[in-house]
């Protein structure tokens, strides 16, 4: 009898953990999809800043990199407010302290960058890394890596920006 109960118990635990693993995998697939969208959004927003610079006649790396052959990135994070003419962040990234690396969700169901102390924050963290290659005034380019991480996992979107609209 004891042996039967033991075997059944092990079987039940096995079945339960199988269903649990399956459900967790589906949640992970869902998070992967959301993160991929957010990473793509970050990379495309940086691209839009470059496009705006070109269209209005600014230096093409304006608000993205501090100097053509030295300096550092001016963009730690970016969200859709960079496309909103009513926003103080219109055509700008977040840069420096306080770090706006977390993703929050607003009452209108839009994701936006926020600080760690924001009560609306989600599990997602999004950062933008910009690396300069060569002299930006003479053929150099910027490599954009937008990373979205959550619960120890991460996904990235990469883009290369030149002094043209491609």
């Amino acid at each position, binding site marked *: 009898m004891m042996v039967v109960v033991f075997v059944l118990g092990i079987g039940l635990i096995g079945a339960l953990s199988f269903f*649990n693993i399956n459900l967790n995998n*589906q949640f992970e*697939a869902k998070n992967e*999809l959301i993160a991929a969208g957010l990473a793509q*959004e970050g990379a*495309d927003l940086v691209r*839009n800043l470059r496009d705006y610079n070109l*269209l209005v006649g600014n230096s093409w790396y304006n608000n993205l990199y501090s100097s053509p052959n030295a300096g550092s990135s001016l963009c730690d994070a970016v969200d859709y407010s960079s496309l909103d003419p009513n926003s103080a962040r219109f055509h700008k990234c977040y840069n420096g302290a306080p770090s706006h690396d977390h993703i929050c969700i607003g009452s209108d*169901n839009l994701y936006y960058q926020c600080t760690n102390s924001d009560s609306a924050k989600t599990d997602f963290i999004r950062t933008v890394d910009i690396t300069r290659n060569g002299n930006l005034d003479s053929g150099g380019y910027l490599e954009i890596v937008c990373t979205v991480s959550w619960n120890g996992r991460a996904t990235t979107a990469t883009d290369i920006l030149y002094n043209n609209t491609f």
Partner: protein
Amino acid sequence: MEKKSKKIQKRNKGFTLIELMVAMFIFMMVMVAMVAVSIAGFRSYSKSKAIKTVTEDVGFAINSITKDVRMGKIESAYANGGEGNFLLVTRNANQTKVCYKITNSNKQLILVDKSKNDCTADTGGAEKILVDLGTDMDFDATSGFRSCVTDNKGDGTVTACNGVSNEKRRGWAEINLNIEDPTMDTDSIHVQTIVSSRDYGWESVP
């Protein structure tokens, strides 16, 4: 002889009532546990199936829209950060207009071929459901599009793109899909991304 008879008597004694009750109790407990596991399993299966279906449908919708936006010319414009329920794109290959539209009534994401500027189908145009709604999924009221035209053909009505002229404009589309399944005890899925057109309308510049 007497000893042998006693042994046989002991062997044929059977179970006592207490032993039977204990055995039945353990059996019942095992059965209850098995039923509970089965129910949990079925629930888990249907929940994961719903999440998987939504995830795949959203992926398909995003990929489809992204392809058209990247390769085509964005026609719909929502100025000053406004949001609308459709996204109108002209495909560069054959100049066919297509519209991705979230219907208010049945909350579906549909694709309209050969659409007019207001996103209604021309004669001969087709209207088809882009995402299968077989599992009762809804695009809720917060789903929508923000977009800015690539080239507004000089009518000067767009303010959000901020190019140097009506012809020199960038085009982008923000896709914001919030999907829920009212029949399932599962969280809604909210996917948000921005896609830029690679057609900047330069050919229109004199």
